[in-house]
């Protein structure tokens, strides 16, 4: 057991913190937001600093980093409220790395790591809520490849993605756990309508309408019909990543709120001299530490071989992230008073991003249900544990 950062991780953290501090101050961030939420020079920087290659194997041109390494970057992403679609691209890259042929990797992963293409994963559908198996988009084999019909929604990062990984059904019915496949779909494919739009957290997204999108045979990523497992793993990984992002955003809010309590005066003394506010600030900091621990647990669980154990740990962590992100976000706004509800202060923007994180990749209720289902399956397969009573003694 060892919970200290390695030297490499400490260096990575320093470089991320430096980028956020020097290049991503709130005013700079707002300018990027006003310009559509993307800075090409920043994307180049991400590639140059190696961030876009962190989680990929060295033989694929990456750095062979772990989920903890990714979390180090994501914490900076959260602290800086970074707008560029880093995570969507990394998530798509992860699916390619896991499932693609070497030709496909060459075609997509290599330019991705080089910062030459931005991807996004299209998994949600209008009726699906958080159920990854709830998929009605269909892909039919044609002589020449595949033909896709259906609709995907709220594809985060889709506003500026060059291509999408689209989850489509090659067999089975809506909500079947088998029959899902992954397809690489360029944003300019014929028959694909991309409705790009802004989101409340500034990240940007898109809805996709696939009306007979014709794709070659090389568009299929991984084995036909077996996409759910890698997709669940990718979403679990993305969940661990946004958990770390949430920690960064919460840390920024705690810092900002603490500073405000010290500086702002009311009734002739600093706000922070009010014990009631001190205790609430303490509760924010406790929540931050809990979030940090939960996010760490999530990242560490990504090395878990047993998918059920991994998903369970990710869900428990996401429940905590949901609770703490909501609490810290709401309290930071409240303790800032009227300033906290304005557009001009960064606090409201952190709050909105945390709100969206809490609702992404499954909200707390959804993850509670997932843990419950996993545990029920375990109980069915395991002998009953005796209740802690006298007779069992």
């Amino acid at each position, binding site marked *: 057991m060892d919970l200290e950062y390695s030297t490499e991780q400490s260096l990575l953290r320093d470089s991320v913190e430096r980028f956020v501090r020097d290049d991503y101050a709130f005013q700079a961030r707002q300018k990027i937001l006003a310009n559509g939420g993307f800075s090409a020079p920043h994307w180049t920087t991400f590639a140059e600093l190696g961030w876009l290659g962190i989680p990929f194997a060295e033989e694929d041109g990456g750095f062979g980093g772990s989920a903890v390494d990714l979390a180090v970057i994501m914490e900076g992403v959260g602290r800086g409220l970074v707008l560029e679609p880093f995570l969507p691209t990394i998530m798509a890259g992860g699916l390619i790395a896991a499932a693609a042929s070497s030709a496909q990797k060459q075609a997509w992963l290599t330019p991705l790591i080089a910062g030459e293409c931005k991807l996004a994963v299209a998994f949600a559908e209008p009726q699906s809520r958080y159920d990854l198996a709830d998929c009605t988009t269909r892909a039919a084999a044609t002589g020449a490849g595949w033909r896709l019909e259906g609709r995907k929604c709220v594809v985060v990062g889709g506003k500026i993605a060059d291509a999408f990984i689209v989850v489509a059904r090659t067999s089975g019915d809506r909500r079947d756990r088998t029959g899902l496949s992954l397809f690489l779909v360029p944003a300019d494919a014929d028959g694909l309508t991309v409705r790009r739009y802004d989101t*409340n957290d500034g990240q940007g997204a898109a809805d996709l309408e696939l009306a007979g999108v014709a794709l070659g045979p090389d568009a299929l990523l991984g084995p036909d019909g077996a996409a759910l497992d890698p997709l669940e793993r990718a979403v679990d990984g993305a969940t661990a990543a946004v958990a770390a992002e949430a920690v960064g955003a919460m840390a920024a809010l705690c810092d900002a709120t603490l500073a405000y309590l010290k500086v702002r005066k009311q009734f*002739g003394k600093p706000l922070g001299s009010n014990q009631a506010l001190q205790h609430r600030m303490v509760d924010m900091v406790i929540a931050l530490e809990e979030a940090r621990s939960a996010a760490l647990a999530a990242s560490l669980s990504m090395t878990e071989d047993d998918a059920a154990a991994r998903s369970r740990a990710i869900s428990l962590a996401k429940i905590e992230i949901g609770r703490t992100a909501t609490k810290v976000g709401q309290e930071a706004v409240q303790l800032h008073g009227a300033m906290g*509800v304005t557009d*001009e202060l960064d606090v409201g923007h952190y709050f909105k991003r945390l709100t969206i994180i809490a609702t992404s990749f499954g909200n707390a209720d959804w993850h509670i249900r997932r843990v419950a289902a996993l545990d029920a399956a375990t109980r069915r397969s395991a002998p009953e544990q005796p209740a802690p009573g006298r007779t069992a003694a």
Partner: protein
Amino acid sequence: MELKLSPAEQAFAADVRTFIRDNLPPDIAGRVRRGEHLGKDDHMRWQQILGRHGWHAFTWPQEHGGPGWSVVQRYLFEVISAEMDCPIIQPFGPRMAGPVIYTFGTPEQKERFLPGIRQSTVWWCQGYSEPQSGSDLASLATRADDAGDHYVVNGQKIWTSYAHHADWMFCLVRTAREERPQQGISFLLIDMTSPGITVKPILMLEGTHSFNAVFFDNVRVPKNNRIGEEGRGWTYAKFLLEHERVDNAAIGVTKQALSQVKAIAAAERDGDTPLIDDPLFQAKLIAVEAQLMSLEMAALRVLSQVASGASPGPVSSLLKIRGTEVAQRISELGMEATAYYALPYQPGLIAGQSNEEPIGPDYAVTAANNYFWRRCMSIYGGSNEIQRNIIAKAMLGL
């Protein structure tokens, strides 16, 4: 003791329903129902309809031209209005400026200002908060210097709701420096078209424009626009604050918000199950409904005491705290209900100024927006922390 309405109260409720059904413009009702950010015209059209019927200043006694309703009637009017998707009556004229003017104003002031409030031909705003005096209102610094028959006002107000719509402002200014900050404050009525006034918008975190900063640069205000005595403005302001808190419970609007979230949850499907049948979401809805039921009963108990002549007192702080918390919670559930459709941001639709297609279901357009916006409820009208201080001191003697 009896919760049921008397026959007279039932008849009154029926009258209110009929009037609203026959007179509320459907486009306005639609915008309210969809949770859009209303424009000045939406508010004014409906308030003037009410004004012509004598119902705009619905809390006023008959002697000042109000309908002279009982507290139960007022309550029914508010709840039914919310239920039927009426816009909230903007309180600055009829709930704030009006009562101060008819309680403390001169006969000339009454004659000059009350009709415009009753008819809703004049939009009022409230000049209380300042950059350096958030919850500590009495520390205000905007100065009104004596210049014979008028004052010269210099300074800045902030968080002024709808100053960009307003024709007049009622305003607290400092006319003298005394030992206690509450002393030396005067209560002025200021014509917003006066030279030297600049209104700058402050956008809210969710992108809408309700608040403003208002700057005064040598603004001349005739002395006969002062309410009551010079230096006693704090008394008049305090008179208002207590009434505002009871209103802030806003039971009718909150009940309607809960119905809407229930309707959303009935429409949303999780797999094949309506979200409203999901045990966890359902439990949260029911828990907040239970709290809202208590809150409504608490508000009715206060109204009942007020009707027997008692002052609402610090209990009004209690209603303000819980009323805002419950409303915020309901908006949070509304947002949660929309899952990924909380993400799309369509400001044109939110402002009702666009015909674009909603990205997700209709009801999702304003869901997150509404949640974000409602965070200000526990801050305005004296933050909930200040209300707790008031209860601790005034009610508990701590």
